[in-house]
């Protein structure tokens, strides 16, 4: 049973590696060039396939943390906390990826690294919430209490995301939009590459989750063995 599961994990890891290569090809070469005037803009636009897929995983991971937090509070079972922790860590990395890839695109497209646009601002806040979540975890020693606190913060923070989004959207629309979304739209031929990247990143997320959960299980096992040996 255990061996079967390990084989499945290897297959899944290989699958996400292959899909990632295909996704890279599609994003960089396969997808038709965007209908943009500047050459830099046409190249830069290709980051959108990975950028949006990263953002999707970033928010999906946070949703998983939220659900796992509720699961933990209801059952007090360690497995829910492991899921929440794994998803929180992965989400943080992906959210940082969103901010970095977005900045890389913004420079050629808008001429600046950053604007306080609604989506950028909400992504930044989301990232900071994730950082807070991990810092909170790092700051509590007792495992049961850590799990409880993390679950409560995961819930409180997740609920704040839509309110933040509404607030930031209203806040921004009070000002004229300075930067248009040049090259934001996708043509029909780009859709395939776009959805393929989205699928790839989702598979990748599942793979990473599996690895991370497995790692945490091993850690628990080692901890138990240590205690048994030390008596």
């Amino acid at each position, binding site marked *: 049973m255990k061996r079967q599961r390990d084989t499945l994990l290897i297959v899944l890891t290989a699958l996400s590696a292959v899909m990632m290569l295909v996704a890279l090809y599609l994003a960089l070469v396969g997808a038709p060039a965007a209908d943009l005037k500047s050459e830099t803009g046409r190249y830069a636009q290709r980051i959108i396939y990975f950028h949006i897929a990263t953002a999707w995983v970033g928010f999906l991971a946070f949703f998983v943390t939220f659900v796992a937090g509720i699961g933990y*509070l209801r059952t007090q079972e360690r497995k829910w906390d492991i899921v929440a922790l794994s998803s929180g860590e992965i989400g943080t990395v992906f959210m940082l990826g969103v901010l970095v890839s977005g900045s890389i695109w913004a420079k050629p497209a808008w001429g600046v690294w950053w604007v306080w646009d609604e989506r950028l601002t909400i992504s930044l*806040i989301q990232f*900071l*919430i994730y*950082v*807070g979540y991990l*810092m*909170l975890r790092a*700051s*509590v*020693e007792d495992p049961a*209490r850590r799990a*409880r*606190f993390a*679950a*409560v*913060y995961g*819930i*409180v*923070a997740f*609920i*704040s995301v839509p*309110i*933040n989004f*509404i*607030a*930031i959207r*209203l*806040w921004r629309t*009070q000002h004229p939009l300075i930067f248009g979304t040049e090259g934001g739209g996708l043509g029909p031929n780009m859709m395939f590459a776009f959805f393929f990247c989205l699928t790839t990143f989702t598979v990748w997320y599942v793979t990473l989750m599996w690895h991370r959960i497995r790692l945490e299980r091993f850690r628990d096992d080692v901890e138990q063995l240590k205690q048994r040996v030390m008596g």
Partner: protein
Amino acid sequence: MTYLRKVFAIVWKDSVAELRTKEMFSAMFVFAVLVIVIFNFAFDLRVSGERVRQVAPGALWVAFAFSGVLGLNRAFILEKDRGCLEGLLLTPVDHTAIYFGKMISTVVFMLLVEALMLPVFTAFFGVNLFNLPLILIVVLGTIGFASVGTTLSAMTAQTRAREVLLPILLLPVAAPVLIAAVKATAGILDGLPMAEIAVWWRLLLAFDLLYPAVAFMTFDYVVKE
């Protein structure tokens, strides 16, 4: 004792303790004044200039929020340090009553500081802040800030990083309150009609109802051993 009386017993206890030491209130107030002074250096505000009106709402709310963080930190760390939290938890009251008691006393302290800050701000910058809608905004914003802050403060008081952690957890979650409060304050100072800032009222009200409800459901997990 009814639930409400239990809540007010906690508010009363906090108020008496604060009246005897005055350490939290004075720290919050002095810090809020200092924030305003720093803002003056940072933006070179000139009395009753056009720039004052642009910066004033933000400066005001940053001062309120930062001094609020100071107050929230003390709310539970004080109990924790003197071993009173265990005593409080042993009393035959629902844990949510502790939440509401702590939240209300934080709101009271913050409002007292803010009540003193409004004339200070008016005097320093020549912007008249005394009108009823603005005071209502201050009350609503403070309730929203304290409602989510109390839950998080109860958690951070029991962590290793303690007071360092609270602003890191609180500020991103409370961002909608600050956005709405700053926007509404700016709208009132600019003399906009009520209809134009109604959306901010609604957002503040929604936050003020939602977060106590979330705390009501989760606070038990924060304080139980």
